[in-house]
Every structure is written in C-alpha cells, then in structure tokens.
C-alpha cells in the first residue's frame, strides 16, 4: 500500500479547526492527492472536544483512523493534546498550542485543570510548542491563531513542507479576500515560531 499521511486536529468547539482542515484539504486536492476528511460533529457547539482527521496519499481508503495511526497532530489546546496522545504514532510530530481553555468541570472547580500537559507531550513526542493566541494578538487579531498553528506545522513536518504545495497561495485562495494578508502573516509567524 502506498503511503498515506494521517493528520489529527484536536481542540475545543469554536477554535477554528475547520479552517485549518479546509486549507489542508484544498492544498492536497489541488496537488492531485486522494484526500479524505472526517470530523466529529456531535455536540461540539456546546463546549465539547472536537477532533478532525485529514488523510492524504495516492489512494486513501479509510475516512477515519484509530489509535497509534496519526503522523501529525495539531492541538489547538494543550489538554486536548494530551487527550489525543494515544492516537499518535510514536514518531509523530506534534504542534501544541500552549493555551488553556477551561471545561465546565474545571471552571466550576469540580476538577483541577491538569498541570504539565505541554511537558508530557515534549517528553514523549517530537513536539513544537507555541502560544498561538499571543502571536495572533501581536498580529492584531486573536482569531488567526489557528493559521499560526498551521504555519508551525508546515515548518515542522516534512509531509507538509516537501509536498510541493505552495501553502501561502492555498491560504490566499481559501480565506475571504479581506482576511488574506492577516492570515498569510499569521502563517509566516507560525513558521518562524516553529523554526526557533
């Protein structure tokens, strides 16, 4: 079987994983790959975890993958990185947003938000850590944090940066024209952060 690359996006409803997966799939489709994408819809609008899976290769069968199968993870929230750690291959590349979003349990004091999420990922995986919200805010709009993370992933993962895809033009073609400049800057800032 030819090589299939499996990417996992994990975060909390409303964080913007949808745009990341849209840019990724647009890039892969444009480059002529077979692509499948799956997301867990469900009750995400109501504060739950959201995961999206994107797979590309010459021929992709499963729209879904299971534990120990992801090559790349982009975690939009640090506790969600830990939650999905068992989905990763041991040599996976992980991009972790060092950002905390409370769950209703931790917000109301019924449970403690866990310490050491980022460190646990760093100890076990090839991990890139950045604070995408901080970077996005410095660019003038916190909402482009998702594209900052995508930039970091494209810098850190050979499957993405050696795919022959010009990610900046894919972004330009995917986002609304008025957000184009901002998102390209966010992408570049993410790449730079990952290179440090």
């Amino acid at each position: 079987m030819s090589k299939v690359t499996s990417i996992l996006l994990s975060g909390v409803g409303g964080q913007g994983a949808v745009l990341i997966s849209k840019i990724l799939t647009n890039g892969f489709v444009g480059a002529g790959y077979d692509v499948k994408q799956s997301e867990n819809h469900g009750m995400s609008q109501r504060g739950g975890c959201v995961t999206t899976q994107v797979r590309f290769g010459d021929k992709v069968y499963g729209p879904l993958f299971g534990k120990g199968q992801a090559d790349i993870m982009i975690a939009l929230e640090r506790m969600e990185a830990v939650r999905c750690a068992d989905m990763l291959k041991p040599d996976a590349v992980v991009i972790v947003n060092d950002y905390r979003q409370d769950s209703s349990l931790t917000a109301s004091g019924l449970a403690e938000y866990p310490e050491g999420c980022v460190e646990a990922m760093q100890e076990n995986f090839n991990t890139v850590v950045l604070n995408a919200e901080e970077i996005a805010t410095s660019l003038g709009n916190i909402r482009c944090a998702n594209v900052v993370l995508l930039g970091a992933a494209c810098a850190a993962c050979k499957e993405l940066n050696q795919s022959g895809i010009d990610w900046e033009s894919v972004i330009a073609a995917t986002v609304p024209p008025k957000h184009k400049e901002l998102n390209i800057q966010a992408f570049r800032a993410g790449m730079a952060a990952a290179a440090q």
Partner: protein
Amino acid sequence: MKHLMSGNEAIARGIYEAGIKVASAYPGTPSTEILENAVKYKDSVYCEWAPNEKVALEVAYGACIGGSRSICTMKLVGLNVAADPMFTAAYNGVRGAFVIVSADDPGHHSSQNEQDNRNYARHAKIPCIEPADSQECKDFVKAACEISEQFDTPVLFRTTTRVNHSMSLVEFGERVEIQAPPYVKDAQKFVCVPAFVEGKHNKVVQRMKDLAEYGATSPLNSVEMNGSAVGVVASGAAYQYAKEVFPEDTSFLKLGLTYPLPVALVKDFASKVDKLYVIEEGDGFLELEIKAAGIECVGKELTGEVGELNPQLVAERVLGTVFPTKTVPVKPVGRPPALCPGCPHRGFFYTVSGKKDYIISGDIGCYGLGSTAPLSAIDAVVCMGGSFTMGMGMAKSFMMEGYTDKKIFAILGDSTFFHNGITGATEIVYNKGNVIPVILDNSITAMTGHQENPSTGFTLQGDVANAVKIEKVMEALGYQNIIIVDPNDLKAMKKAVEDAAASEVPACIITRRPCVLLKRLNLKFGKCVVDVDKCISCKKCLKVGCPAVAIRDGKSWIDRNQCVGCTVCAQVCPVGAIEKEGE
C-alpha cells in the same frame, strides 16, 4: 474536476442528478445536511422540512404515487416513527421511484441508540443499498431510483455517520430530466385493503427473489480477486477499513446492494477462497444472511457489534496487528457538553432543579442537557415527544399506587411539540392527567443546527410560512390556564411553575425566548461583570451551570469571551455582586 464533499452533500447532488422532484425530511444527525444541501437545487427539486419522519415518508410516497421520483431522509430512530407507512408501501409498490434514506449512527455520536436499520429492509421486504464513500452516495441515489422503478419497490438507502459526514472526492454528472406521465387512478395497486393483501404479499416475496438474483450482476456489487487464501465480504465504511488493513493478496466482495443478499454471488466468491471474513458495522446482518445460506464465515465474534469501527480496530481485532502507542502521564479532565451561555432553557431548569417534589419528564432536544450537573433536573428521557406521555404514565401509576406527593412537569421544545408532542398534549387533557406540559419554545429547532419548523414562520426553501401558534393549539385542545413566561426572568419563571402546579383547571407553561445563537434576530448581547469586593464566595452563581461562570482566586469570575449578558447568574447572586455592564 473532482469535488471534495461530504456524503450528505453528495447525496444532495445525487438527488438532483437522479431527477428526483420531491424531497421531504425531518432533521436529525447525521442526516440533516442532505436536505440543507438539496435545497440549493430548489428550482428542480421541491424540498421541505416535515413536522416528523412519518409525515416525510408519506409525503415522499404520495409524490411517487403522483408519478415523480421522490426521497425522504431521516436519522436512524426517525425510521421507527416512519415505519408504519413503509411496511405497506412495500406491498403497494411505486409509480415514480421512492427512496428512503436512513442515516445510522454506529458509535452513537449523536443518537440515543445504535440500531442497525438494515434490519428494517429484511422486516419490510424491501431492498437495501449501502454506499461506502461520497462518490457512491451520489451515484447510488440514481441506482436506487432505477431499482425502485424496475422492481416496483421502495428502496432503503442506508448510510452511517462516517459515510454521511466524512469528505471524499466526487465527480459530478448531469441531471436526468424525467416528466411523469399524466396521473391515472390505480386503486387496485395503491389502496391497501385486506382483500388485496395476499396477492400483494405474493408479489413481494417473488420480488425479493428477483432482487437476490439481480444482485449477482448488479454493478453495485463487485468482486476483486487478488488471491485465494483470504476473502472479505464488506459494505459501507467497513469496506474501506478492511481494504486499508488486510494484506494485498486478500480478495474482496464489496456489497452495495446488501439486501436481499445475492446468495449465488457470495457462494461463488466463498468457493474461491480458503477463509471468509465478513466486515460490517452494526449488527452481524450480512453475516447472519451468509450463514443462513450455509456459507461458513467469521465476523462479529472478532469485529464486535458495539460502537464504530476504524482501520486500527479492524486490524487489531481481526488480524491481531498491534499499533504501538505512547501513554503520557497526565490525565485530561472531561469536557461534558452544557447548555450554552445565555441558553433560554437554563431559567426553567434552575427553577425546578433540586426540588424533591418535582418530577421532570424529559425529551430530546438541547434541553436534554438539563440532565447534566449541576442542574441535574431530568428524571427520564426516551424519545422525541415521549415526555408528555411518559409523564402521563407516571401520573397514572402514582394515582393507582396512591402516591400524592409529586408534581410532574413534562418538557419538550417547539420542534418536538409539532413532531409528536401534540398527541401527548391531547392525551393529557383527554384522559385527565395530573401532568403540566411545558413547552420550551426557543423559536427554532436548535439541537440539530437551527432548522425551521411549523412555528418559526419560514420554510426550508426560505419562503414565509404561516407560523402556527403553540398557545392556540393548546387552547384548542382544552388547556384553560396557559402561562407564557420569559424563562430568563427567574421570578416570573418561579411564579409560573407554582401557579401551574396549583391550577385547578388543565394548565400548561410556554417558556418563550429565542435561542441565543439565532442569527436572523441580530441579537445584541451585553456582558455581566463581577464586583469582587461584593462577592462573598458563596458559589451560588455556579448552580446555574453556565460555561461562562467560574471561580478564580476564590471569587466568582465571568469569561467575557463567552458571556452574553443573560443575567440569570446575576439574579441568583444573593448580594448583588454580578451586574450587567452599562445598567
């Protein structure tokens, strides 16, 4: 050019290309987006939200009697509601094509059970078609129409969440335009009276035999011979998983027309391999049929029948392949879903939560989340429209057992009221139930992502509709004390509950405030803020169960990004430490 699209978008495209003219549905995950996308073709396909699935199925069936190709779509449990007309439509047969989409949900991502609706195909004696990706979702709609017309039968089009919601590449085709011939009455065919049953049933039995034979050569079923050691029979998403993980010399019989089982084809395939596996999601449906045909195979004892499969699970359970993983030493905390900040259902639940004398008979909708902590306000939930009637049964049980200490409130939403609640509301006044019906009217079908319903004033096609007034319906049924209240006004809400409970005449409550996510209202939100100097750390504000309210450094804290300024937490604060900004 190929398009990356979800199975539901592809089915919608298939509806268009197949020349279907009438499409009716009741929303339900994972089927909802089919008609939300089909309505893009409303110049060619009439699309509507029906009040419930039985109505949707009957409308589509009527359209097929009228001569048009027609389709209805629903989630798995919706077919239970719609089953009655389906079984007899199976006897009567069709004029134009008639396709029933059942979107099953292995893994119960958003459903109250995991029922495998292929069993309905066997039970109703109609063919079942199962697509395995988005391209097939589109192409098989047309194939389903052709089978329906060729074999004079309704066709069950069974998908699963993963097929409905995952995206893969699709190549488009042209629409076939079909003009139905002028209507001709054919009572013999379409009137189901006992005198005609025997003849019709005989025809149905023969039809299923013909379809089993047709399955051997149908392009929906295909054989890929790669070796003689191992063969796999598979359908739907499970085919993709098996294809991914079995060795390259594995042979496949991929079934797209899964019922009736093409026995001759399976026998032939089985005879060419040493070992036969059946890989399917849900029940061991194909496995049972294959074994009943005397063919040896292995299936559910390895794959399991609970939950959703994926490539790793198929590899692990069937082939014993291990995918190494690493365990990280940090334990994540759960993120249970909660009512949104500003949700108008919160006020009602806060008012009744913790009251030992109240029983809350619940229903399916966003308000199902009233069952989660800290509100924990619901006693039972079973199905859409079940709250009024279950509450009635409890009331009659208490009457017979001699218990008089409980007051029963039965709750459901505006969409659920029209789905199935009206019959329950009728039951309560007709048979004099000691139950208070409560309609939590948020002016939209929220749970499934904001679909119009008979009370919203709009149709799926975007036309203005006559908005049915729930209070007028209740009045007509015989409710004499109809209390309409803003649930965000906690004092008024409490009074409404107490007045209804004390009412001597049939009473009901309608809580009325639109869903905060409703975009067309352009709602202007404010923010609530905490005065930490006034806050006495009593944590009463946490009792409303709002995701925007938390405790930070021992004091109440409101997340500005989430708060919409509904003031429910402020009304609960005993010292007035929470205020709405600018007021």
